[in-house]
């Protein structure tokens, strides 16, 4: 370790310990401020409108009017429903009819759980904290990585390696210290989901796997919470408000759940992560901001609860005589918002179905029960099909980066070419834009998407097929067909599949030409051979 490295480590440690200290001071400040607020209220005999203590429905009428008067000594003190600083802080949204005093009080007394403190969760939580939601829970088991920072706006360079939840809360607290923040340093599991969800009014799905999306939806149905769900990949985003109104399973008037819309998970092989497919910061950011917006709309309108519906309404689908729900409070019909950053127009709203009569989660025939969820007998990962690591090749079809490095510098001969040691073809199957980022000298680029798209002869008759062979196949065939082909990709998965495909296309000249891949790809090359090779 150089002295510069040592200095960097030491600085990192100092910053981390300062962050911890800062956090402690902020906590103490908040506590002191809360104590002061409570004691000033106690002395004036004021009713407490503390965080999450009073449901919006039960607010005393005069509190909403802001006109209660109290005798304090011989002076008449006018009591206001919000603290003085809250009028200032939320003034710009308070003067909007969509929020107003009632909406602000509902926000203040509400609690929101944000599952996932990543590209969606960061902007969503930021706007919810800014708007004055009383309590925000954040759940995430990951730590901050440098590759998160272009989109996960609550984290920062100094906080790389810190738990995401702590990093996010540190930012949120400096944004709005009056909100109560609850950290959960864990991945959401079926066993704990219901106990946590129970404490909140609205749940935000800001996660990134199909398994967590089904789990969150099921837990929302069982705990009767509205769910604001979003996702994003590359330049596209999707947003749905589900289970709203959050009626118990079997009530047709309740909003559809994730399973109503997607009864079965997609094939695991078709699921692409942001790490593999890429993601543009403002695209996922837009979706997170929209989640915050939908959440604010739901809360400010007043969350519809089971008690808002009586049996007449539930049976006939009509508001009943004595408790006609305010039309503004009726949930909007279920829809899916599609965002496509590079299309025109970029936004598009799709009408979705209502609850599915045979849904396995929200219908009367539900098989997703509290007991099943809590006992962990519902295996979400298995339901969605785990993607097993690719293991398509035999050991003799693979070389390590060390072996390949020696082949490159000529210290050992390439397979089957004893005469011309360094004569070989290196095919990089990453997509073109990744290849252009960085590549090994002398490699040729044939993106896996093109390799996969090529149809090898359907029934194993290599010669008689396609009149026009794909360009890349023809190129490799004519390119000295005795030279061995080494295939490389980023991590060593696509390279294996590409080798398979090349052999199916007959590029191994009936087994006389060696074709194989470089184990663990360019990531391993960077780690073990050339530390200067860019990692992305």
């Amino acid at each position, binding site marked *: 370790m150089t002295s510069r490295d040592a200095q960097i480590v030491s600085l990192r440690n100092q910053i981390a310990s300062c962050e911890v200290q800062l956090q402690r001071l902020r906590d103490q400040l908040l506590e002191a401020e809360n104590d002061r607020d409570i004691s000033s209220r106690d002395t004036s005999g004021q009713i407490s409108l503390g965080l999450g203590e009073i449901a919006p429905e039960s607010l005393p009428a005069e509190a909403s009017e802001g006109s209660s008067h109290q005798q304090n000594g011989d002076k008449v003190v006018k009591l206001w429903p919000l603290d003085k600083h809250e009028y200032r802080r939320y003034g710009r949204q308070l003067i909007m009819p969509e929020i107003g005093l009632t909406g602000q009080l509902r926000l203040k007394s509400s609690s929101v759980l944000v599952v*996932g403190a*990543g*590209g*969606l*969760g960061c902007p969503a939580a930021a706007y919810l904290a800014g708007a004055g939601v009383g309590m925000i829970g954040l759940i995430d088991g990951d730590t901050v990585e440098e590759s998160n920072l272009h989109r996960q706006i609550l984290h920062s360079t100094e906080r790389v390696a810190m738990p995401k939840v702590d990093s996010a809360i540190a930012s949120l607290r400096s944004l709005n210290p009056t909100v109560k923040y609850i950290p959960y340093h864990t991945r959401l599991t079926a066993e704990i989901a219901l106990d946590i969800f129970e404490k909140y009014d609205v749940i935000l*799905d*800001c*996660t*990134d*796997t*199909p398994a967590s*999306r089904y789990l969150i939806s099921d837990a929302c149905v069982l705990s009767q919470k509205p769910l604001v769900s*979003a*996702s*994003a*990949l*590359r330049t*596209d*985003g*999707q947003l749905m408000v589900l289970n709203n109104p959050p009626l118990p399973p079997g009530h047709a008037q309740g909003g559809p759940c994730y399973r109503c*819309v*997607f*009864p*079965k*998970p*997609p*094939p695991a092989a*078709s*699921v*692409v*992560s*942001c790490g593999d*497919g890429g*993601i543009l910061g403002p695209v*996922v950011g837009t979706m997170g901001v929209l989640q915050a917006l939908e959440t604010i709309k739901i809360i400010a309108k007043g969350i519809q609860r089971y008690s808002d519906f009586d049996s007449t309404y539930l049976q006939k689908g009509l508001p009943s005589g004595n408790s006609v729900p305010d039309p503004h409070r009726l949930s909007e019909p279920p829809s*899916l918002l*599609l965002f*496509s950053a590079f*299309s025109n127009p970029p936004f*598009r*709203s*799709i*009408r*979705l*179905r209502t609850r599915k009569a045979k849904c396995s989660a929200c219908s009367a025939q539900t098989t997703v029960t509290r007991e099943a969820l809590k006992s962990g007998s519902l295996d979400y990962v298995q339901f969605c099909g785990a993607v097993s690591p690719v293991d398509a090749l035999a050991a003799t079809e693979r070389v390590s980066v060390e072996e390949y490095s020696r082949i490159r510098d000529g210290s050992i001969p390439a397979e089957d070419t004893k005469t011309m040691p360094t004569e070989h073809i290196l095919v990089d199957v990453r997509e073109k834009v990744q290849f252009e980022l960085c590549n090994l000298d002398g490699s040729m680029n044939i993106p896996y*998407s093109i390799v*996969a*798209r*090529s*149809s090898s002869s359907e029934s194993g008759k290599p010669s008689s097929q396609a009149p026009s062979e794909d360009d890349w196949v023809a190129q490799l065939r004519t390119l000295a067909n005795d030279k061995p082909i080494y295939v490389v990709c980023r991590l060593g998965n696509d390279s294996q599949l590409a080798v398979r495909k090349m052999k199916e296309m007959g590029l191994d000249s009936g087994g006389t030409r060696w074709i194989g891949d470089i184990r663990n790809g360019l990531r391993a090359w960077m780690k073990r051979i050339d530390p200067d090779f860019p990692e992305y």
Partner: protein
Amino acid sequence: MSAASTEDVVPITVEFSGGLEMLFSNERKHKLSIAAKDESGLNSNVAFLVRYLCDNLMKDPRKDLFVLDGTVCVVPEHVLSPALTIQRRPGILVLINDADWELEGEDKYEIQKGDNILFVSTLHGG
């Protein structure tokens, strides 16, 4: 196409989103004219359209990434039995004029002139 044949075809717009466009030459929007009647003389429906897309528009051989029952796409004999239902692949929504196809009769929906049929794959990133 000739003017005489315009009676027999239905002009429509087909769109792909959420990554499905990659299976269709990376084009999100396709303006197509499909036959007004299917092989057995019935009005062309969504099931017919999906077969048409697999056979004519989809260059990618990975048909299973688009429809669940891949045999509908690749085996010509099956094209001649329109009674076969098309199942959407899990994770794909089919939207007819901006509404879930489940609101419109699913694969039995009869294609109208000017319809917009959108195929959306779910995203999971965040």
